[in-house]
């Protein structure tokens, strides 16, 4: 095991593998690619949230013979996006269930004519009553999905919650809400597709999961595996937003390619991307918590409801992760979590960094502060009393076998942020100042990799080979979209073999070339796929020692010479490894009990805020994040992941509001959907405590999603500290602060507003 070994390349700040291409402007994103005879494609979308399609009319002023037109009837195979449940059509067939649902596709060589034509398709509907909120869906007066609107529910039970209330010293209840959030990757969704009788479908695109798209296209086109090829192009940000949507877009472009017999490019503009693609699930989470007289948790009863939108997409697995993160990093003998994902007539909500955890962490970490204030105990002390430690069990009765160092992380965070002194200073200064300052903390974990038995089902395959040109090549379907896959997997391979960083290249994420090493999601790439690359690399060295006289010690030159000897004697120089679960991982999908995740990353975040009592604007003035993510494989990339996640978390808390009007996103522009700018982000102080994880590549655990989980509760806890008012919903915009703060000053006045 190499977790504690001294390393040269792993752990070093080697430059990003594709960095130079990006800096020179020569990295090829999908919109930068031209194909001979390519036409642009466009989408005609529903303008109502729910209803039957009665007719599709074509304006006579347009010469439709010039256009390729595709509808549901043109789909050769199944009209379903293949994900978890097959409920979402690629193209609406007779009924629409949300605004901006794709109904018809058009392609034409001239993009201006194409735009005119989209507006010249007239669709008549027979409207059906829509629903837009969790509450409307729960009421079940209008059924919009299945028999009951309920897309998925889970029940997790530990101990005996119902008997715990009677003897509790304190019972504290709270309801917390989170809004939708848009990924706002700067590169919109886009693909290019080609179709031919001989070769089937080929797609190039901005996407996270080539094999998800591959699987979906097989079903849509009813083709054998070797007749669909999916190739990722350089991807300008994803954050979960290119996990499932590209399956739909790829099918659209491929249908138009089939109809037009031309390569088709479909790249959304910002308004279409914002209106039509997935967002983070809105949530409503209720906590009822019993504590003993010392402030120890006795029982937690948690009810989670998420708004899934019109189709199931990934809502069941998002709900699963929300469920498993909802009781926080605390020990409690009696826990019940009941969770439900409800259908509504909005664009389906989907994967977004954190994947249900930011919602759950917001609720529990805000609730912990509310408990602290309610029972008169310091928020830090309350957390310390209840932290998980080695040997404790989680809500799923998973025993914490690896070290849990929450106290150490908290100590560091309090020290680095000068938390106690600042809090005392602000408490003294606030009464006489128009600017109210406060400090807030959030403590949380993020489970690394797929939930429960997920990694076993994925059964990932990855490896390395040696190219005839004398490079070691990483073979994995895991994609680079800024987070550093190329660099990390290259570092792991180079280190494992003992060759230089520049001796290693990445194979393109092309289903025609690389094996299915699973999707690039769930903070799994470094830990799970990295481990496969590490094993495959070691296996290759052993192979070359046995069959090609590679010595005990060797340099790069000797390694590649041995590879060539092997090639001459045996053919292809390749080594692949399949996933093996760490020992003692048992998960009961029915009871939701057992090892929910093979490893957890842990973090304490501290926010310092200033609330202007005149403008009601909140500024995050400073931010600290201390985390344990196993071994840090590249300090520059790891720091960048934490900082970027925090900036998104700040947006989630204070800026980013998806405004729906009749189910359509009304603010579908960067002008009015606001993310933090260079002037809004505070200084962010990042500290790692490293405890190598035995079963991750060189000790790595997951890192990418963790930092997004904590900022919202840390910031709202700081606002609680600054203003004395506990806000329970995000995004918390100045107008929300104004409404609630003035309501607290005068209930009558607020009622009149």
């Amino acid at each position, binding site marked *: 095991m190499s977790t504690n070994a001294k390393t040269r390349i792993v752990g070093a700040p080697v430059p990003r593998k594709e960095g130079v291409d990006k800096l020179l402007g020569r990295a090829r994103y999908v919109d930068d690619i031209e194909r001979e005879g390519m036409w642009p494609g466009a989408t005609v979308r529903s303008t109502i949230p729910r209803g039957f399609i009665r007719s599709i009319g074509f304006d006579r002023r347009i010469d439709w013979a010039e256009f390729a037109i595709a509808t549901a009837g043109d789909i050769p195979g199944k009209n379903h996006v293949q994900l978890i449940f097959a409920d979402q059509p690629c193209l609406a067939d007779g009924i629409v269930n949300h605004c901006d649902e794709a109904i018809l596709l058009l392609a034409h060589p001239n993009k201006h004519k194409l735009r005119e034509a989209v507006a010249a398709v007239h669709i008549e509907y027979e409207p059906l009553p829509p629903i837009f909120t969790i509450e409307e869906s729960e009421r079940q007066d209008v059924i919009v999905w299945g028999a009951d609107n309920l897309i998925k529910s889970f029940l997790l039970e530990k101990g005996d919650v119902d008997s715990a209330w009677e003897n509790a010293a304190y019972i504290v209840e709270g309801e917390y809400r989170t809004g939708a959030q848009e990924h706002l990757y*700067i590169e919109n969704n886009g693909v290019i597709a080609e179709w031919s009788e001989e070769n089937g479908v080929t797609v190039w695109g901005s996407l996270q999961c080539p094999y998800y798209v591959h699987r979906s296209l097989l079903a849509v086109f009813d083709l054998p595996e070797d007749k669909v090829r999916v190739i990722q192009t350089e991807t*300008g940000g994803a954050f979960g937003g290119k996990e499932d949507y590209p399956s739909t877009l790829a099918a659209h472009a491929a249908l138009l390619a089939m109809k037009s017999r031309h390569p088709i490019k479909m790249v959304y503009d910002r308004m279409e991307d914002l209106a039509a693609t997935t967002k983070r699930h809105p949530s409503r989470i209720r906590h009822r918590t019993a504590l003993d007289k010392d402030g120890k948790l006795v029982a937690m009863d948690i009810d989670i409801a998420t708004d899934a939108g019109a189709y199931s997409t990934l809502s069941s697995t998002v709900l699963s992760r929300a469920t498993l993160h909802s009781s926080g990093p605390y020990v409690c003998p009696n826990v019940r979590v009941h969770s439900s994902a409800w259908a509504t007539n909005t664009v389906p909500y989907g994967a977004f960094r954190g994947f249900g955890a930011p919602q759950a962490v917001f609720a529990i970490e805000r609730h912990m502060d509310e408990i602290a204030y309610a029972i008169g105990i310091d928020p830090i002390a309350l957390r310390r009393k209840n932290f998980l430690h080695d040997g404790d069990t989680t809500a799923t009765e998973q025993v914490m076998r690896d070290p849990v160092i929450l106290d150490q992380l908290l100590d560091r965070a309090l020290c680095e942020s000068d938390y106690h002194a600042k809090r005392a200073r602000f408490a003294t200064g606030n009464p006489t100042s128009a600017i109210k300052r406060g400090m807030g903390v959030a403590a949380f974990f993020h489970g690394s990799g797929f939930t429960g038995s997920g990694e076993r089902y994925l059964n990932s395959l990855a490896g390395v080979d040696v190219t005839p040109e004398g490079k070691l090549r990483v073979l994995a379907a895991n994609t680079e979209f800024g987070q550093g896959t190329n660099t990390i997997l290259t570092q792991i391979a180079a280190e494992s073999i003992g060759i230089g960083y520049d001796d290693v290249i990445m194979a393109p994420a092309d289903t025609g070339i690389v094996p299915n090493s699973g999707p690039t999601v769930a903070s799994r790439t470094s830990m799970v796929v990295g481990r496969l690359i590490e094993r495959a690399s070691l296996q290759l060295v052993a192979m070359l020692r046995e069959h090609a006289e590679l010595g005990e010690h060797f340099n790069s030159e000797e390694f590649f010479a041995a590879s060539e000897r092997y090639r001459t004697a045996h053919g292809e120089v390749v080594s692949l490894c399949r996933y093996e679960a760490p020992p003692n991982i048992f998960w009961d999908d029915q009871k939701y009990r057992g090892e929910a995740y093979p490893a957890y990353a842990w973090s304490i975040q501290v926010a310092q805020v200033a609330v202007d009592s005149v403008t009601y604007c909140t500024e995050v003035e400073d931010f600290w994040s201390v985390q344990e993510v196993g071994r840090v494989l590249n300090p520059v990339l790891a720091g960048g992941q934490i900082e970027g996640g925090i900036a998104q978390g700040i947006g989630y808390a204070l800026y980013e509001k998806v405004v729906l009007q009749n189910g359509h996103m009304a603010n579908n522009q960067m002008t009015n959907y606001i993310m933090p700018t260079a002037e809004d982000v505070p200084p962010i102080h990042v500290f790692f405590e490293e405890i190598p994880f035995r079963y991750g590549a060189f000790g790595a655990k997951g890192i990418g999603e963790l930092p997004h989980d904590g900022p919202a509760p840390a910031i709202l806890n700081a606002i609680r500290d600054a203003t004395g008012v506990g806000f329970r919903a995000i995004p918390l915009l100045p107008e929300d602060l104004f409404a609630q703060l003035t309501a607290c000053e005068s209930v009558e006045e607020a009622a009149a507003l």
Partner: protein
Amino acid sequence: MSGSQCTLRFTVNGENCAVQVPPMKRLLDVLREDLHLTGTKEGCGEGECGSCSVRMDGELVNSCLVPVLHAEGANIQTVEGLAASGTLHPLQQAFLKYGGAQCGICTPGMLMAATQLLSINPHPTMAEIREGLAGNLCRCTGFIRIFESVIAAAHNPSTDQGAHAR
């Protein structure tokens, strides 16, 4: 609509260019489609994200908001012109070293904004860097490592020369 075409002349990255295009065509599209300089990116098409930032006669502009006829006779610099000498510009070196680029899609525009900033203010304060880059959105980095990169480049003696090269 495409409409009538006209011939426009300007300089891009030091080279004289003549294009036959509709006068209202966006400079962004002329750069990408007619001159095949795809380093300049479109993120929003409404001047909010700054991904399409280029320098035009010493000003930073969003090329998605510039009708190409406004560029007649102008001296334009795009990301492709930064490393014209064949070696990375000090800003590019710093972005590489300090992690200023992640997904890379905002990077060309960010580099142009940073070049512009350093050309008029070679040693900016943190507040000036934040202001100078406020028109360029990055969703990956949280900006922190971009700030570090700009500071590092400002301390690199060859930056002044690089920034003023064109």
